[in-house]
């Protein structure tokens, strides 16, 4: 991947010079690496670099949070813009590690729904925690809701959940009959009580997306909560798996800027350009994750068929619950996370 990045940097700077920027501006952009970062390089970063005539240096960190913390603690961060779970941006902002965004300089985000934005972040890319299952196992009557997931009599089989309370507690509450619009603030006690019910039937508590995919591909589990992109990747290999967006948990990663970023002005320009509906509409062409800016669906670039597969398309979004990053970065959310470890161990 490295040579590819350097060619990108090179080509981007060539464009920069050819357009006539004597001292080409640059930023360092960080995402989560792997196929996802490769896809967004083509979908977003290359077009933005061309549009602004800037150089985009890339770095990747599967988990950026500890690095953000260390970099900002020194007061001289190396990174500028990070694509990271929104929670990191919000709690980072509260801890003075993330810059407050000046939305007057980000007009492309103007029409985005208020819940897609925070003072520190703007939704960049959507994915979804969905209920995935083995088609062979369940035939015409697959599990369709979290209540079904919890129903071990009607749907016998092995199960897996993510080894993390985010979306898992929400699923437990939906299974327990809490209406989707009344989830937040989460009733943590009730959620853990419901999880205790299903715990003996959980074969694996997975910790990485790759692991969740492998569990499905190897038929180690018959149903699990997994990220939609991982499931479609497994399905493309010809393995009979499917999923439902019904009661899925819509999550998004956001763009945010490190406090004291070395190229603050360019970073803000970058964020605005990355949110351009036309550029955002490139996401579905390269990966099964949806654009953060809903305006992208109006550009005509995304076919209706493709939109139906996108977690953030208006139709699919309506079936799902938008995970509240605000709640998860609150004190109650952090406490719930800490409680998770003892729940798993007991």
């Amino acid at each position: 991947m490295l040579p590819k990045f350097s060619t990108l940097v090179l080509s981007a700077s060539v464009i920069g010079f050819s357009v006539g920027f004597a001292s080409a501006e640059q930023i360092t952009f960080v995402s989560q690496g792997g196929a996802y970062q490769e896809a967004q390089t083509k979908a977003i970063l290359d077009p933005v670099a061309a549009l602004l005539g800037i150089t985009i240096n890339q770095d990747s960190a599967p988990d950026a949070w500890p690095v953000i913390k260390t970099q900002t603690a020194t007061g001289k961060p190396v990174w500028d813009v990070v694509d990271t779970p929104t929670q990191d941006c919000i709690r980072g902002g509260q801890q003075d590690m993330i810059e407050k965004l000046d939305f007057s300089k980000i007009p492309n985000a103007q029409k985005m729904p208020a819940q897609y934005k925070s003072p520190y972040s703007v939704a960049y890319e959507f994915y979804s925690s969905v209920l995935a299952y083995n088609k062979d196992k369940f035939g015409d009557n697959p599990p369709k809701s979290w209540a079904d997931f919890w129903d071990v009599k009607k749907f016998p089989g092995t199960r897996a959940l993510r080894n993390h309370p985010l979306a898992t507690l929400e699923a437990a509450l939906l299974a327990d009959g809490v209406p989707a619009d009344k989830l937040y603030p989460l009733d943590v006690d009730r959620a853990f009580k419901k999880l205790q019910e299903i715990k003996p039937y959980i074969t694996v508590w997975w910790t990485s997306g790759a692991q969740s995919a492998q569990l499905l591909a190897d038929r180690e589990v018959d149903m699990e909560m997994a990220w939609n992109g991982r499931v479609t990747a497994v399905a493309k290999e010809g393995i009979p798996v499917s999923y439902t967006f019904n009661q899925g948990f819509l999550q998004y990663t956001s763009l945010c800027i490190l406090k004291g970023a070395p190229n603050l002005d360019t970073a803000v320009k970058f964020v605005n350009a990355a949110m351009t509906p036309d550029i955002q509409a490139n996401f579905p062409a390269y990966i099964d994750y949806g654009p953060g800016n809903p305006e992208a669906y109006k550009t005509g670039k995304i076919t209706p068929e493709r939109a139906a597969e996108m977690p953030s398309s208006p139709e699919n979004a309506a079936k799902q619950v938008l995970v509240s990053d605000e709640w998860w970065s609150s004190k109650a959310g952090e406490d719930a996370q800490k409680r998770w470890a003892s729940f798993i161990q007991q």
Partner: protein
Amino acid sequence: MTISIASPSDSHERSEQRLMLLLLAPALLVVGALLIVPLGWLAWQSIWQDGGFTIVNYQRFLTDSVYWMTFLQTFRIAFVVTLATVLLGYPVAYVAAGLPQRWSMIVLALVLLPFWTSVLVRAYAWLILLQRTGIVNSALKSAGLIDSPLLLVNNEFGTVLATIHILLPFMVLPLYATMKKIPQELVMAGSSLGGSPLHVFLRVFLPLSLPGMIAGMVLVFVLTLGFYITPELLGGGRTYMVSMLVSRNIQVYNEWGAASSISVVLMICVFLVFKLASLLIPFERIIGTR
């Protein structure tokens, strides 16, 4: 004549020592910068938080059940793994040491080959072997021995099994080295004095091989205490070891102080294990410098 030769060789020796020190300096610097300084910083971080001293990170060991339960589980796994590697490794080392040179090399190569394979690869190999649709379960099923697949992996069993496999060489190699040095004459003398093979083994061979066994046990025990990838991949999320507690505290909870204190306590545990073992055999034998 002898004096005139000795004095230039003396100064030669001194200059050689100086050169050695000079050559060692980069290594010492690296050890200092990459080991001593970070370890000190780590320990410091666990007691210094928000501009003041604190013991809160160590208090958790008494109040938070997750902490001591994780340590308990880790030590239990380390104990089981150590015991199993002794039981499995001893016969292998015994056979290897008793065979003619060429054959013992082949046995050792069989021990070392997996040792050179990445831990990650071996963890996945075990996953493929042991999972529900894995080779072991399908073989048992087609043989009619089981109806529903056995839960062999994604639990503590799978973790322990893979850990044993990964750490077995650390038991076999010191055992083999020690056994190789036991003079055959002693065993023969024991037999010629009328000892039955079992008797000779128990009274002569076994006691003489003990230092190698203890060295192997200490190595395996200490290495298991720090295992991370194997329980992470094969533990199904339930097998929770100390290293995972450290990573979780940093990645999820962002509690650097807590993570540091756990590391410090784990390190102290490791030192204690070494200390205990050094009461039995010299430390140099454990780490294999002698």
